[in-house]
């Protein structure tokens, strides 16, 4: 629909886009029409009737001229019944009355009906103080009720550990049921019975079989659904509320933290702000508890004798500066490496690499500790379009064809997953999911296409898709530099006919062709990938292959990129953008580019090395064999994240100096020589860049935990102790420096980031976009009769921080290995029996869970269970690794 309509609402005459609903038009005219069942992300329902208004059209005579009353005003033909504003679309000339006697009586009547069975629970109801029913009854209702019969009652129930349901309060707006269906795709809530006996519950009142996101609680306009973890803890007016960025995944949702005193009591969505508005996933909504965990470090630790002893901050800084300086002087800056930083704010990431490069002089900087292959920082930029303006999550929802590559978004990027589900339900989006397992997005009910790739067949699939797309036709929109490389791509792919791709990927040839064609033909395509590619041993080849596929299908074109990389952490993108990779400076300036380096050298007052440093896997090997002597690990539990645990242990043992910034004394920190107690995300302000490359501000919600310092304070202190003349008045000052130096960040500032931060883009996309032959690295071997070990992130847990919450590990349930029924039967294993998995470097024992979404010949063990370290089994864990599997008897001891 195009064009606008002029409507009259209570005498005001706004001009609104055609297709606007009357309730929204009223809002635009600053006329408040109350709503309950209506929701910004759900199609109109018209059930609660609170938004009833009187609607009319001007009377026209036979020639179509408006008929006028005696006083010259147009005569209106009013509709005989009041209409719900949320289901009525405006028409040009429409007249709406929201305060006429008829409209007021109708609305007051509905308000009275809503309170007929609603109990007077306010004193004991958590919703009190932020309850839409309270607010709207106050604004629009009567101050007494004529109903004094007995009310209908239900029995309250817990629908699992997260949702408390008090059905007496329910006004049957059905927001919870619809949100769970249309946005979450879980269909966990349902209405039982009918009429006044209608009761929202689960299947047979069993615990909700769902993502436990709590969005049902968020959208419930009354206190029928409330959060059990928050129950009876506070009143909203007790809380200070601060909007920050969720510390978990790279979607970068805005979170409204409710703080009382020094404690975060809850997290909520933001209704209108951020990329997520009201949405949060279970981690974002309930995962904040680690901030106040009893084991938070409350002071620096310095190794003395054999053990870590408490030390003052200045003392620790002095130790670090002295010993770093010492090692650098004796063995050169190349003996020092800086690891981690994906969870830090942008300003801190910038300072981390500035310390490494601008003070010590080393390019051994890499945040991507989970990577198994030496991937240059430029590779991820190239695969996602070289810094061209990038797809937003909103555009992702509206894609007509979305291809998700080797990523279970449920665990990695829950909000993006919800967007794809919403798009599929509401906007005609078609999904193609390439994954070994039949992950949630690949379920039959979503009516997309599942390409069941066999482990190790990822590169073959991408080659096949690219080849099929090229066979179907010439790619549109290639910039000249890229177009000239097309022939060499064709040559390289000559060996990859679709039949070969089918054989090696395990995906049928016609499915490959159909998927390629869908992407090619799409008006609004999207390609989404994450660590399934980035952490893969063939990552370099895969990233190039993604870039190839992007160009040949039009997901990448000269103007825009519609290829999204979902990093694992909230600021993984920022880490890449701030040059926490060995080959690029902030803004992806190659370290070897003398001209582009100059501004940095000028700002930092130091000549910078032109030689790229080592990537994280290379640092791992170098530290294990002594070439790297000092390691600074910022906010990363390296023993768990490193691809080879044994090697990482060796590295930590061997290094002369290990410095760790963390919130907790992790096992990695236990190996350190100096541990800095770091402030948590909610205890500092800064910016974070999400997978959309959107720079967002995070407000500070709490004072720093006692004895902690922000990572920024730590880096500044050490830099100054090493002789740097850094002087910043705060994190915003650092950001100004970033904006001056980093291409793509120019013109941005903290002030321009509210209400919604900008996506950064480079004026000139990075050179790249050269379609090249993708090389085939060999995958790790393993017993040919073994099971492929599949791994990945899961919803309830993300890293060791999530282990330090009360709810998340409980929801995740104990660690187990998921096996299809056929394989379980073959191994004589039943549900709960113990399976032993042996890899080249070690073994582990886990209880078995039967799951037919795991393909035959595979065993799925998620990364993040406490106590399960897949990187003990061999390198690289979870990608192309085969393990021997056998039933373990209960009597056997569990080995490390």
């Amino acid at each position: 629909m195009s064009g606008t309509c002029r409507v009259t609402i209570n005498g005001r005459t706004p001009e609104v886009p055609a297709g606007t609903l009357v309730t929204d038009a009223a809002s635009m005219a600053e006329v408040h029409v109350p709503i309950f069942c209506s929701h910004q992300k759900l199609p109109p329902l018209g059930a609660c009737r609170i938004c009833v208004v009187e609607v009319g059209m001007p009377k026209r005579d036979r020639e179509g001229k408006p008929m006028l009353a005696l006083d010259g005003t147009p005569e209106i033909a009013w509709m005989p019944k009041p209409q719900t504003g949320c289901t009525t679309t405006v028409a040009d000339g429409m007249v709406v009355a929201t305060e006429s006697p008829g409209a007021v009586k109708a609305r007051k009547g509905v308000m009275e009906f809503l309170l007929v069975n609603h109990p007077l629970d306010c004193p004991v109801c958590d919703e009190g103080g932020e309850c839409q029913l309270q607010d709207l009854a106050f604004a629009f209702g009567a101050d007494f009720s004529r109903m004094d019969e007995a009310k209908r009652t239900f029995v309250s129930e817990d629908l699992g550990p997260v949702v408390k349901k008090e059905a007496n309060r329910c006004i049957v707006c059905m927001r919870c049921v619809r949100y769970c269906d249309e946005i979450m795709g879980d269909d966990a809530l349902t209405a039982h019975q009918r009429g006044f006996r209608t009761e929202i519950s689960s299947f047979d009142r069993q615990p909700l079989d769902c993502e436990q996101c709590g969005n049902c609680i968020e959208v419930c306009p009354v206190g029928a659904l409330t959060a059990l973890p928050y129950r009876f803890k506070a009143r909203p007016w007790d809380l200070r509320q601060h909007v920050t960025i969720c510390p978990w995944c790279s979607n970068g949702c805005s979170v409204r933290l409710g703080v009382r005193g020094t404690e975060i009591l809850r997290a909520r969505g933001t209704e209108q702000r951020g990329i997520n508005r009201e949405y949060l996933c279970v981690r974002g909504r309930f995962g904040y508890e680690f901030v106040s965990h009893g084991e938070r470090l409350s002071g620096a630790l310095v190794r003395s004798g054999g053990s870590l002893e408490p030390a003052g901050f200045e003392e620790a800084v002095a130790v670090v500066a002295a010993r770093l300086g010492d090692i650098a002087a004796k063995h050169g800056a190349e003996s020092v490496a800086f690891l981690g930083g994906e969870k830090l704010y942008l300003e801190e990431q910038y300072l981390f690499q500035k310390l490494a490069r601008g003070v010590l002089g080393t390019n051994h900087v890499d945040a991507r500790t989970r990577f198994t292959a030496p991937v240059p920082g430029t590779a991820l930029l190239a695969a996602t379009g070289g810094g061209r303006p990038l797809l937003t999550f909103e555009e992702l929802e509206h894609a007509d064809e979305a291809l998700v590559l080797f990523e279970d978004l449920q665990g990695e990027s829950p909000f993006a997953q919800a967007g794809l589900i919403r798009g599929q339900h509401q906007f005609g989006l078609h999904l193609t999911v390439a994954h070994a397992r039949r992950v949630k997005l690949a379920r039959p009910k979503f009516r997309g296409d599942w390409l069941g790739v066999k482990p190790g067949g990822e590169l073959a699939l991408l080659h096949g898709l690219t080849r099929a797309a090229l066979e179907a036709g010439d790619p549109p929109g290639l910039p000249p530099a890229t177009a000239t490389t097309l022939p060499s791509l064709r040559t390289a792919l000559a060996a990859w006919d679709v039949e070969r791709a089918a054989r090696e990927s395990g995906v049928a040839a016609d499915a490959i062709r159909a998927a390629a064609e869908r992407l090619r033909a799409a008006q609004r395509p999207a390609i989404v990938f994450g660590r399934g590619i980035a952490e893969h041993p063939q990552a370099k080849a895969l990233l190039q292959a993604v870039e190839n596929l992007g160009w040949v299908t039009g997901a990448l074109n000269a103007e825009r990129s519609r290829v999204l990389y979902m990093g694992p952490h909230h600021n993984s993108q920022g880490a890449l953008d701030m040059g926490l990779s060995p080959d690029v400076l902030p803004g992806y300036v190659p370290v070897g580019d003398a001209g582009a380096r100059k501004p940095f050298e000028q700002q930092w007052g130091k000549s910078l090395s032109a030689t790229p440093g080592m990537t994280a896997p290379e640092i791992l090997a170098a530290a294990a064999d002594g070439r790297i002597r000092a390691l600074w690990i910022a906010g990363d539990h390296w023993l768990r994240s490193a691809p080879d645990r044994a090697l990482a242990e060796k590295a930590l043992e061997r290094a002369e100096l290990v410095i760790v910034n963390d919130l907790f004394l992790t096992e990695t920190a236990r190996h350190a020589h100096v541990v800095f107690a770091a402030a948590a995300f909610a205890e500092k302000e800064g910016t974070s860049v999400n997978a959309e490359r959107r720079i967002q501000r995070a407000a500070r919600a709490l004072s720093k935990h006692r004895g902690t310092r922000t990572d920024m304070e730590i880096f500044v202190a050490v830099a100054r102790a090493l002789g740097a003349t850094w002087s910043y008045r705060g994190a915003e000052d650092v950001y100004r420096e970033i904006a001056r130096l980093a291409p793509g960040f120019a013109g941005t500032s903290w002030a321009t980031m509210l209400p919604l931060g900008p996506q950064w883009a480079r004026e000139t996309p990075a050179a790249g976009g050269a379609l090249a032959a993708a090389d085939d690295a060999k995958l790790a071997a393993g017993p040919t009769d073994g099971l492929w070990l599949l791994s990945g992130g899961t919803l309830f847990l993300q890293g060791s921080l999530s282990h330090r919450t009360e709810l998340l590990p409980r929801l995740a349930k104990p660690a187990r290995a998921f096996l299809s029924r056929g394989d379980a039967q073959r191994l004589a294993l039943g549900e709960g029996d113990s399976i032993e998995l042996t890899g080249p470097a070690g073994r582990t024992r886990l209880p078995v869970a039967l799951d037919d979404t795991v393909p035959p010949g595979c065993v799925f063990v998620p990364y993040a269970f406490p106590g399960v370290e897949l990187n003990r089994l061999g390198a690289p864990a979870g990608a192309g690794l085969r393990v021997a599997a056998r039933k373990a008897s209960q009597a056997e001891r569990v080995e490390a």
Partner: protein
Amino acid sequence: MRGPLLFSDIDTPGLTSIETYRKGGGYATASSVVGTKPPDEVIEIVKASGLRGRGGAGFPAGLKWSFVPKKTSKPKYLVCNADESEPGTFKDRELMEKNPHLLIEGMILTAWAIQANTGYIYLRGEFDYIQHILDQALAEARAAGLLGAAAGGKGFALEIHTHLGAGAYICGEETALLSSLEGYRGQPRLKPPFPAVEGLYACPTVVNNVETLMNVPHIVKNGAAWFRQWGTEKSPGTKILSVSGPVKRPGNYEVPMGLPLSTLLNEHCGGMRDGMKVKAVIPGGSSVPLLPASMLGTGLDFESMVAAGTLLGSGGVIVIDEQTCIVDALWNITRFYEHESCGKCTPCREGTYWMSEVFARLERGEGRESDIDLLYDVSDNILGKSFCALGDAAAMPVMGAIKHFRDEFEFHVRERRCMVNRRAPGLTERQTEAVPA
């Protein structure tokens, strides 16, 4: 002959079998029209006849058919609304039980007119035995080549299936019926879009009542003018009234539209039993306001009933005698709507509950002066504000009863009992109703 048109042969022995049906001329019209007469012509005949929906809404059938888009790539559907659940109505049951082939022929002709290739007969769940009768008749029709890939041998594919509901009055509302048929809870949907444009599976769908469809073969065979020999200008044809209550001969009666209600009751039904006298009559199923005894001369047609402040509705005539308490009768009706409310919208869901509670209190002798105006106002707050007509159906009878019999309500408040009540007041079911599992 029990009636002029649909009931003319209704009691023919063996009419449910296709042989007997054909012997009486059945399926001759379908055979000659399908594949031969242009569909639009069929629509025009039915339009000209003025046939109005016989299920309760009274919408002109031919006009509804003409809303179906001619050019569309979507399949089209014909749905027969056999959900007959309006209290006081039992005509479709007898029609289908005794003359299933007439319904099938009516559906064949209607499907041809709107070019629908699939039809469903949505039966209320209690009509299980009727489903068997219809399935048998459909099998006979299929075997005779009247249904199937090339129905009538003329290349028009048509298949008709029966579909059984499971106990929900609301599924008689056309969009709720479609929801239920699609496999959802039977709750009504927003209109527009109207089913003729976006109905079953978002495809063009015509929903018609059993009696309406059964008129079609007669009309197409004999023409619009012939049909108009009965009835009035605005309500042509005949209507089957279902009469219940303490009359001598309750049952279904087919009469020309416009016949005075009193004639139906006194002549056809033999008047009241046991020397009883009429207090009021509900003319069109429990959803319409009652007519006091003084207004029984009203004609049984759509416009006369509207003029009398009520509606012809489904034609379920419920006779209330002078010894029956009006308040108790309305409580009975209100509890019906409370039980049948689907729960989607606030006014109906909460309002019917509230009114039932107030009625219960009045019947218990605990009524208050303000209760009468309260009931009227609550009804008024439901009327026109609910999502669908069930709310209106709950509201209108209460308002009508208070208008015509306010004295009985006032008596309850003052004297704490019924003015008259030959039946025991309804049991308070809430004491004995088990909470469902």
